[in-house]
Each structure stands twice: as C-alpha cells, then as structure tokens.
C-alpha cells in the first residue's frame, strides 16, 4: 500500500511541476504582452 502511495505521489509531482511550469510561462508571456 505504501509503495503504491509513493508511486502515486511521484506521478502527481511530475505532472504538477510540468503543469505549474507551463502555467507560469504562459502568465509571464501574457503579462509582458
């Protein structure tokens, strides 16, 4: 159970970092338009 939780945490972490990064880049671009 714990091992599955760790795997899920890493999955969410990867997706979260990518989506947060892309949102940040779009906001940076829009604010400077």
């Amino acid at each position, binding site marked *: 159970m714990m091992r599955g939780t760790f795997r899920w945490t*890493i999955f969410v972490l990867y997706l979260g970092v990518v989506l947060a990064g892309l949102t940040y*880049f779009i906001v940076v671009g829009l604010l400077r338009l």
Partner: protein
Amino acid sequence: MKRFLRDNGLSVAFGLLFLGTLAGQAIAGHADYNHQQVLEGGQTISLPAFLATSEFAVDVAENWQSEYLQFFLYIFATVWLVQRGSPESKQPDEIGLESDEKQKVGRHATAESPKWARAGGWRTGLFSRSLGLMMGGLFLLSWLAQSVAGVSAYNSEQLSQLTDPVSWLQYLGTADFWNRTLQNWQSEFLAIGSMAVLSVYLRQRGSPESKPVGTPHGATETSG
C-alpha cells in the same frame, strides 16, 4: 528509504537531473542575457528578474514542447508502424489496437486490472488512450506556452530596435517561431529514428531498451 530509492530510481534520478539542469540553464541564460544587455547598452537584471522574463520562458517551453511531441508521436506511431528487428517495435502481425483479450479490457480484465480497464464504455475508451492523450495535451500546452512567451520576447526585441510589435497570430507566421519550433522537432525525429534503427543491430546488456545480447538481429520486440 533505501527501498524507496531502489524502486523509484528512474523517476528520482531524472527528476533531480531535470531540476539541476534547469537551474544551470537559468544561471547560464541569465549570464548570457546580461552579456547581451551590456553589448547593447541596456540595463542588467538580477537572476530572479531574469526568471520572470519571456526570454527564459520561451527557451524552456520550446524544448518541452518538442519532447512531449516526441513521446506523443512515438506512443501513437508504434501502434500502427513497426520496425522489424527493433526492441522498440511490436511484431508486424500485431499492427493496430490489438484484441480486448490481449489488452485485458472489459470482460478480459483481471482482478488486478485498473477499474477503468474493466468498466467498459467511455471510461475504458478514455483510459485506453490516456497516455497518448496526456503527452499530446502537454505538447499542445507547451507549444502554446512557447508561442505566448515567444511573441512577448520577440516584441521586446522589436521594440528595442524601434520596430513595430506583432500580434500573437502574426507571430505564429514569423521565422522566429518556426525556427525555434523546427530546430527542436528535427532533433527529436532523428533521435526516434536512430533509436528504432540502431537497436536492430546494436545491444546494451541489461537495458529494457535493448534486445538481449544474443538475440538475432531479425528478432522484433524482445527486451532484455
């Protein structure tokens, strides 16, 4: 902890490499940006300020989009295209979506199968394409981010040279946008093709990306 690292070595190692190299890109990009500013008689900026520039954003986003495009295309293309002899490919007689039995969906799902593999209907349909859809979605989002940050960086360059800024739609037709896009795409396609072809005749003992060392060159889909 030791067991956690052993079980998740790939994701932890590449996650740390990503953060380290992104930090490196930020530091080198900042130095380069300030160097250009000095040459052009402009003002230098701090590292935190550089991280909020569209120049940094577009440089990161243009690389992200091409990587996600690479994986999206690879995942999707390997359903329909094969390479005889490549461990990255399936057998030529398995081209297509394959049977429900082989894919363990619907009534062929096992007790350990994910719930949506058994559910049937739209849930199984969606789950059956979730990896490709996610990679494709991240590609489109990254490409959008590249274009939005790109037009902003392009316009600040235009304004510094006292030329007219362009709209986002106009930017999509500029050489800058397509140069950034295609220079990344060509390298991804070369890398995918190289992997499919070189792995036919070359081996890496112990790697699941390679065939077992003693496997014949003509054998397809046998990772070792």
